[in-house]
């Protein structure tokens, strides 16, 4: 199984698990170019959304 196949399989599994949209979001980012940086960027985006949210 290649990395891409693993991710596809994993995302399908997460789609069934509606409770964790962050997982799906990070995996989708990873799937785009199979890089740790893509996941880190997506996580940073999610965290900054929280920090910069208007009070």
């Amino acid at each position, binding site marked *: *199984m*290649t*990395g*891409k196949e*693993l*991710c596809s*399989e*994993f995302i399908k*599994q997460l789609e069934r698990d509606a409770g*964790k949209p*962050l*997982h799906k979001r*990070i*995996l989708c980012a*990873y799937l785009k170019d*199979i*890089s*740790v940086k893509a*996941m*880190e960027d997506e*996580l*940073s985006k*999610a*965290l*900054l959304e*929280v*920090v*910069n*949210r208007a*009070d």
Partner: protein
Amino acid sequence: MRIRSLSVEGFRGFNEHREIHFDDRLTVFYAPNSYGKTSITEALEWLLYGYTSKVKSAEYSKEEYKDSYRNVHFPDDSVPCVTAVFGNGTEEMTLRSELLADDRYKHYLDGKEVAVWPFESDDLSASKPFILQHALKNLLLVKPSDRYQAFALLLGLDDLGRVQDDFVSFATRYRQPAEVERLCAEVDGMFATAEGKVMLANVSKLYKSGKSVDDVYAAVLAACATHLKTDVEQGDVLPRLISLRNEKAEAVFAKPIKLDAYSDQQTKQHKVDIEYFTAFVTEELLGQYLELAALATVNHIHERARFFDLGVELLGKSAGSCPLCGRPVDDTLAEHIRTCHKEASEDRKESAQLDQRRTQVQQSLSSLKQRLDANHLVHVSLTRDFLALKPSLEQLRGILAEVHASEFQGVEDAVNHVDQAKGQLDKAYQTATEAVDAVMVSVEQSKEESSVLKQLGEDLVGYASQAKSFTVAVAASIPAATSAANALRQELDVRAGTEDVAVLIQLLENRKKVEKKKEIDRILAEVKDLRRTVDQLVSTRILEVIAGELTSGVLGWYDQIKTSCDHEVHFCGFDVPRTKTGELKARCISINAVSYGKSLPSAVSSLSESKLNALGLCLCIGSNMNADCPFGFLIIDDPIQSLDVEHEAQFVEILRELVEQGKQLVVLSHNKGWVERLVRHCSSLNGAYYEITGYDKTGPHVKWQPWEKTQARLDTIDAIVKDNDADSAQLARAEA
């Protein structure tokens, strides 16, 4: 795809060109140690993969292996290369790799340069066609995590391993953005301060134990109620606490240390003002200003015109006599008055334009004055409170100097610095406004002089320069002011007994930040959870492969290698161990063993070295036979190290069976007796046999040897001819 021939020059032990042809079924090499037989394996491995597993696995000593591919005796101006011909039936392809500097290489397929080999793709995860003695140790006699990596590589599951590595790296090495780190540190800092206060320790405990924000703030409000002593509506708690704190603090020291930075709007306006002031006096303005000198004449024209307007009007009412004295006015005089009136009216029209210019200059001066005032006021307002500290510095010293001496020194210097800059700014402002007034008076009095306007220009530039310096002084003083303000706040809380109140105020003011921090924690926990899920998924996949196909494949070969003298301690399968909670342990593979039906802790600690070596060989063979490998050959380098004689004999059987199952084998060994036994046992295969008879600077001396002695070969042919069950292919092979 089978290997037909190999040519090597300048690579590893090979200096001068050598060419080796392989039998389609079995090729055997014998060479004493250090005669260069492993260089044959390495040349093939490097050609196919661009590296040798020995170099790749030596991450810790990369320096020692640097440039180790190139033979040191090979001429500097030549390019080391490895060429091999592979075939599949009638199809044939030639692969050639040239070794370049820094271990780079160039690939050529049938003479044409290519970036990758045709069998390379995303799916090239199949087991490699090499069984290398040094690699066997990496499979078994290593810690479970390293074994896991080696297995993943062996089983062609490196992609899966890489994905897992990515998630481990992501979950463990991720660095939060600075804004996120700041917020987390701020919130953690607040609760760390609370932890140090007896009455608030419970609040900190609740926060650290992961309780909800509501639970934490219920405890905060309970603590607030204790301080306020009366029942207060929830919305009034914070204002009441602030008021309580300020009252108590002001009783100790009433003046705040406050120096704000210029707002963005103020900074922008200041920049525009400075440009306006420095460019106010232009040549054009000077020209317009000097033209106003003619205004005195213009006034005279206006007065004259008004005089004649009145004269003409009165003349119309009392024609023929002067309206003032009654003396007669003759026609000539009346005509003269009318002519003068006409001329004065025309002069008045021409002067209107000049008059308008005067109004414009006056408006510009008025506007300049307003902007000077406004600009100066911004600086004054911003620093008023801060400079008001000056008379109280001695009192402030009494409060701060003991515990916060550097903060006091900083704010004292800052006050003096800003005060000095303010003095210079005020002086420049005074000079500039006086210069504006002087110009206005000169226009008013029609006494325009170029020197007056030029002086205004110089004074405006002077003001702009001081205003700029002032903003720099303010900016430079803000850190000291902020630091002293914090120190003062702390000191006042200590002296006024409001430390707990201060923490409560901070907690109430920052509830939103605490909520955000909790959400950040939740997100980061989800990342760990994601890593765990990936680990489980990968481990499950690995378990499927190793506990199913691989275990049965390896057991099949392992059972064949057992000998009569083997005592009952044996390998019984591969597994992924589990944690106490029943989850699969991440990145871990165990090798199980049994003794008389009872499980042993591990095959690694229970099996003899000989048996472990045999198991390693069976593992490599099993995985290679199971994998969807694009290569029909298998290179086995020095397989019988540490095998006892009986295991050696069993292994010969295994090699023969591999050939009969269709594998093309290339076997290299340092053990001449075993090699001869292998050849004898496989005499009917009539393979290729090479001996490396020597080694010198030119490289190994590879000599072809007959598979069997002539008489033995004739006997074999004779036996086949007499065997009614033998087929023509067997005969052809024996005769080849």
